[in-house]
């Protein structure tokens, strides 16, 4: 789960990670009120969406008067912000964060992520703040400092030294502030079961202080149960409604832009099914994992979600029955076709325990648009043909 910048900064503040002062607004009036309350004569109006690249997309603007705050808030609230991470459809901006202006001397980069190879968190830092870190990694990898921290022993002094010398920070007072900053950020990462924290840019001010000018946090979904404070920050409007509905029924669904709806048990086989459809010249309309125990109810729900997509021209049900026998799944599929009006060809491939019995059940049911397939290759090629109207 991801949270907004303003929420990440709330979490940072809880741990003493320095951030600019700011107040969230959902209306233009509130935005102006917030600017008044913050005082000063420079403010930043920042669109709050779960995607990077907001500045380039026109979602982050500097205001030098309250009038400008008003104009900019009006412009940004309600806009559909398109960035390299939102996709071409963009995201609707429903909240703006009003922040005090900062005295930027230097822009740095700091993040904490899981290093899957080292199997521990890694602190990454760079002097190239404000740039996309993937671009830095590609063009000037020597400008990224990587410091793995073993959680069994925690953040040590040598981690701090590696960080500040790696960033070329020579002033003693600044070194101390930077080390403190990183140590606190590491604590946030561990305590909150974060999956990643990224601060880009982390700025150095004219007076040598380090401040998180931006903040991005993602959390381990499996650990949210023990963080009700983080779970409360969930913004449903940032999630795909179909994906969300599916997850409530224990289904894992991701919409894609093709024509063949897929319903599969197991994530690996679901991806493999999409790959096979592609290989055979078709295009998958979605990823859908119905889980290990596919039954009539989950299959019916799966049909319902797949059919919401108007591009779907055929559905490929690909289930490898193991402990749940295929004959039971076949009956579940027939039952599901009675619960949901399925108006496209459905190619069904059931393999595994009791597969021949399942094939008989489907055949004897004699439903026009339910077509049995013998194996994965056969099913995929029939689905591709059906989507082209050639079956």
């Amino acid at each position, binding site marked *: 789960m991801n949270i907004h910048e303003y929420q990440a900064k709330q979490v940072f503040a809880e741990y003493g990670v320095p951030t600019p002062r700011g107040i969230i607004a959902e209306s233009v009036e509130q935005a102006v009120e917030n600017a008044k309350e913050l005082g000063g004569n420079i403010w930043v109006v920042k669109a709050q969406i779960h995607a990077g690249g907001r500045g380039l997309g026109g979602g982050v603007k500097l205001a030098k008067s309250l009038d400008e705050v008003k104009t900019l808030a009006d412009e940004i609230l309600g806009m559909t912000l398109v960035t390299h*991470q939102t996709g071409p459809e963009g995201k609707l901006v429903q909240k703006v964060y009003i922040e005090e202006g900062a005295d930027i001397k230097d822009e740095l980069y700091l993040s904490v992520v*899981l290093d*899957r*190879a080292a*199997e*521990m968190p890694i602190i990454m830092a760079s002097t190239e703040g404000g740039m996309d870190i*993937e671009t830095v990694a590609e063009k000037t990898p020597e400008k990224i400092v990587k410091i793995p921290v*073993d*959680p*069994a022993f925690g953040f040590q002094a040598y981690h701090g030294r590696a960080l500040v010398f790696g960033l070329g920070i020579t002033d003693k007072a600044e070194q101390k502030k930077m080390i403190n900053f990183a140590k606190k950020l590491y604590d946030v990462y*561990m305590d909150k*079961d974060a*999956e990643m924290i990224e601060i880009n840019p982390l700025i150095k001010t004219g007076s040598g202080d380090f401040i998180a000018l931006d903040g991005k946090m993602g959390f*381990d*979904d*499996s*650990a949210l*149960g*023990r963080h009700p404070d983080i779970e409360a920050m969930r913004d449903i409007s940032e999630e795909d409604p179909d994906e969300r509905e599916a997850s409530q029924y224990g289904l*894992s669904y*991701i919409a*894609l832009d093709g024509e063949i709806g897929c319903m*599969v*048990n*197991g*994530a*690996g*086989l*679901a*991806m*493999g099914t*999409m*790959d*096979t*459809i*592609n*290989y*055979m010249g078709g295009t*998958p309309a979605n*990823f859908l*994992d119905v889980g*290990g125990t596919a039954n009539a109810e989950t299959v019916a729900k799966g049909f319902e979600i797949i059919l919401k997509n108007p591009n779907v021209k055929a559905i490929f049900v690909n289930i*490898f*029955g*193991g*402990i749940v026998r295929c004959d039971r799944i076949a009956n579940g599929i027939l039952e599901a076709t009675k619960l949901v009006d399925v108006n496209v060809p459905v190619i069904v491939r059931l*393999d*595994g*325990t009791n597969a021949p019995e399942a094939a008989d059940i489907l055949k004897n049911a004699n439903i026009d648009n339910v077509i049995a397939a013998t*194996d*994965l*290759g056969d099913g*995929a090629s029939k689905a591709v043909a059906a989507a082209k109207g050639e079956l």
Partner: protein
Amino acid sequence: MSILVNKDTKVIVQGFTGGEGTFHAQQCMDYGTNIVGGVTPGKGGQEHLGKPVFNTVAEAVAATGATVSMVFVPPAFVGDAVMEAAAAGIELAVIITEGAPVKDMQAAKAFAVKNGMKTIGPNCPGIITAGECKIGIMPGNIFKKGNVGLISKSGTLTYEGANQVVNEGYGITTAVGIGGDPIIGLSYKQLLTEFQNDPETEAIVMIGEIGGDLEIQAAAFIKENVTKPVVAFIAGQSAPPGKRMGHAGAIISGTAGTAKEKMDALEAAGVKVVVSPAEIGKAVKEVLSK
């Protein structure tokens, strides 16, 4: 021969008396697995499925001589259960549970390694040595005995692959589902070594997916160390970047972890790479009839 487990392996079940633990322990016993007892804190002294229940893993090990634990405890308790097994001298923990917090698994794995305990999973179907020992949730009847070793991140693709191998007239020595989480126990490298050293295994099927770089490491390892033919499939060639495809670890981050880079690396290492899982059986036949 086989790898890691066989008909003599003594197995306990952590989370023995729970719904999942009970159902699958019974299935494993029906397959022939030598389950010698189980652990459910507070239920020590009882009998379940005809086997003794213990309060702690240490007691279970002392009383039964078990060397392997099959872990079915709920996600929030998996890390602790794995550490308990390691501390009690268990040699291999097979962790079936899905949804364990990454931080817990990070600590549990580090602790297991320190104590010399191997782990498989979490979020995996388990391990099966055909005809001898099933420790996990896979349908045992698919895995006919033969000479092909199988390593897979995905549960149902393990079944799919094994089934195709059997349909081509071959069979399985041992199949291991290593799990699709960001942090897992035994991985391709260690298991490739085991299969390379197993005289009965003549070919290896390796099924991977997008995310992380375990398959790339495996490719480098195969090039240097594996002389037996390897067939590989990588799931997620058509997956969009930045989306988590069902498994917690199956995500393309930026430009890293794509199916293509993994397939290229494996191909360069001399592996027979197939573009669809539907081709696994045929590819095995091809490499074995050379």
